[in-house]
């Protein structure tokens, strides 16, 4: 649980933010200069607000009314930076154990071996921090932050300087950290795909203020989706179980409460949960289960909202069986001719080839 209500002025930049969240992974999203990094620094204690208070998991960290400011070294908040910021004069093992040394013995609940194994850094322990690749550095940075058994992990654009494959790898690790060590995470990111895949909740910031808070699939790009090309960044995330691989056709079937999701690839590590990202532009709607169609993925849901403005576009929000949300980008014309309305039961049709197996694989 994190609760923030702060104000801060620096020159002509003003940050004013108030929110509470119980998300396991809460994302702070916004363009550069929106104040998302400053907000994360305030939580970690690298900066002090002019006014307000911050509570993390029941611990009051800042309260200007009581003149309370817990210094960063007493907050037990693990920080992961974009460029890892490992200590270049220590080897990897010393880097990883740095925070643990300062953690009171009774509170060292994150075991060294488990972290080293989960993050796959065992073979790096003797190396110097300067001799690592970008992905390795980031994994060591995660291990270092974890081993101070933090109340909260604050990650400031942890994947911004990594290539596609390394980003997928780090995202997978972050999911595992969340599941295996049950430490809540505050993720600062400007990348929609990271937030959709990882976050349970997102706070959108613009020019120092919160403009939206909610489910990532509904909050991200909510304002810009009607603008030209904006619909292509509207994405939903569905949590499904990896099921059987059909060797004859080379497809993998994912089990979702609302139906079967067919992926045109071999997704290994069966029987794990994956988060499938589905672009709103790849989702069609039908009242009846269609026959004689090439579409293999047909998901049952109910319309919970239809968002329209003066543009030709309409965004139909579905609640699928099992509770996941799915957005379909369509036209106002379709909505009118099909007579779509809130509460109606519909089938969402998704082209199998529109699902990116690279994301699913890294995710599996």
């Amino acid at each position, binding site marked *: 649980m994190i609760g923030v209500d702060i104000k801060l002025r620096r020159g002509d930049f003003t940050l004013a933010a108030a929110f509470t969240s119980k998300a396991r992974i809460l994302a702070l999203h916004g363009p550069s200069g929106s104040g998302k990094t400053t907000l994360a620094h305030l939580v970690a*204690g690298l900066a002090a607000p002019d006014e307000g208070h911050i509570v993390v998991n029941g611990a009051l960290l800042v309260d200007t009314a009581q003149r309370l400011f817990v210094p*960063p*070294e*007493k*907050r037990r908040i693990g920080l992961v930076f974009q460029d890892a910021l490992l200590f270049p004069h220590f080897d990897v093992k010393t880097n990883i154990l740095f*925070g643990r040394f*300062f953690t009171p013995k009774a509170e060292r609940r994150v075991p060294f071996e488990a972290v080293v194994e989960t993050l796959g850094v065992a073979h790096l322990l003797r190396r110097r921090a300067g001799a690592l690749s970008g992905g390795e550095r980031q994994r060591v940075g995660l291990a*270092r932050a974890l081993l101070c058994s933090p109340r909260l992990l604050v990650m400031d654009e942890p994947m911004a300087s990594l290539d596609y494959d390394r980003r997928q790898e780090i995202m997978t690790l972050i999911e595992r950290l969340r599941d295996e060590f049950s430490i809540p995470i505050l993720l600062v990111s400007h990348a929609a795909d990271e937030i959709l895949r990882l976050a349970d909740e997102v706070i959108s910031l613009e020019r120092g203020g919160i403009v939206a808070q909610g489910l990532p699939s509904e909050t991200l790009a909510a304002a810009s989706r009607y603008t030209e090309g904006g619909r292509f960044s509207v994405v939903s995330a569905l949590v499904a179980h990896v099921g059987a691989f059909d060797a004859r056709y080379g497809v993998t079937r994912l089990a979702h409460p609302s139906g079967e999701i067919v992926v045109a690839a071999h997704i290994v590590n069966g029987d794990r949960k994956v988060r499938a990202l589905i672009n709103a532009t790849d989702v069609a709607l039908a009242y009846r289960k269609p026959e004689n169609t090439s579409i293999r993925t047909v998901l049952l849901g109910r319309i919970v909202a239809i968002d329209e403005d003066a543009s030709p576009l309409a965004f139909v929000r579905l609640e699928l069986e099992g509770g996941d949300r799915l957005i379909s980008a369509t036209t106002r014309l379709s909505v009118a001719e099909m007579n779509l309305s809130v509460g109606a039961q519909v089938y969402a049709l998704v082209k199998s080839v529109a699902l990116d197996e690279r994301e699913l694989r890294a995710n599996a």
Partner: protein
Amino acid sequence: MNLSDFAPSLQFSPQELTAIVLSLKVAGTATAFSLPLAVFVAYALARWRFPGHAALNAFIHLPLVMPPVVTGFALLLLLGRKTPLGAFLAEYFGIVFAFRWTGAALAAAVMSFPLMIRPIRLSFESIDERLALASRSLGADPLWTFFLVTLPLAAPGVIVGSILGFAKALGEFGATITFVSNIPGETQTIPSAIYSFTQTPDGDADALRLAAVSATIAVAALVVSEILQKRADATRAGK
């Protein structure tokens, strides 16, 4: 003078030996005592913004631009036996600077301070400040952070600064001779001894020999500092 006067006699006279040993003692003491202060001031100048920042910076560099004799004279006015401060230190702490080797060490320390500060400050400035923040977030308070992260990363600058300071202290002449005079066995360092030899009719060979010693130490110091600098750059590049 010809070289044959000089070449066979690498044997040092007692006066020369005394001057060499005293010089090493003076320069060593000056370096040892000014180093912690230099590290502190360099850190303050590199990392803190405070009123008087520019003034402090200028004040430290004064000995570099003023004639050394002026610095020596200033020390004499401040810490001479008859001055209030000098009398106070002598009375209550038994510390006397005027015309003592301790005074020579003080003069050398003051004169070498700006040379010492510069590489240390540059070293501090080249360290990513966020490394200290990372250390804080991992639970290390500011003091632990300084000794575990900032100072080790600045070590190359600290070493280079000490060597430059030591070399400068060995060669200090103007302020030393003004403040503590040129007393053999007490305040006669290598440079003062060279000066004395050049003032005596047959002292050229002795002066030359001491000059060679002085130059050797100086060159060795520069070479060592250069090597350490290179090694430090390589470490920073992650080798």
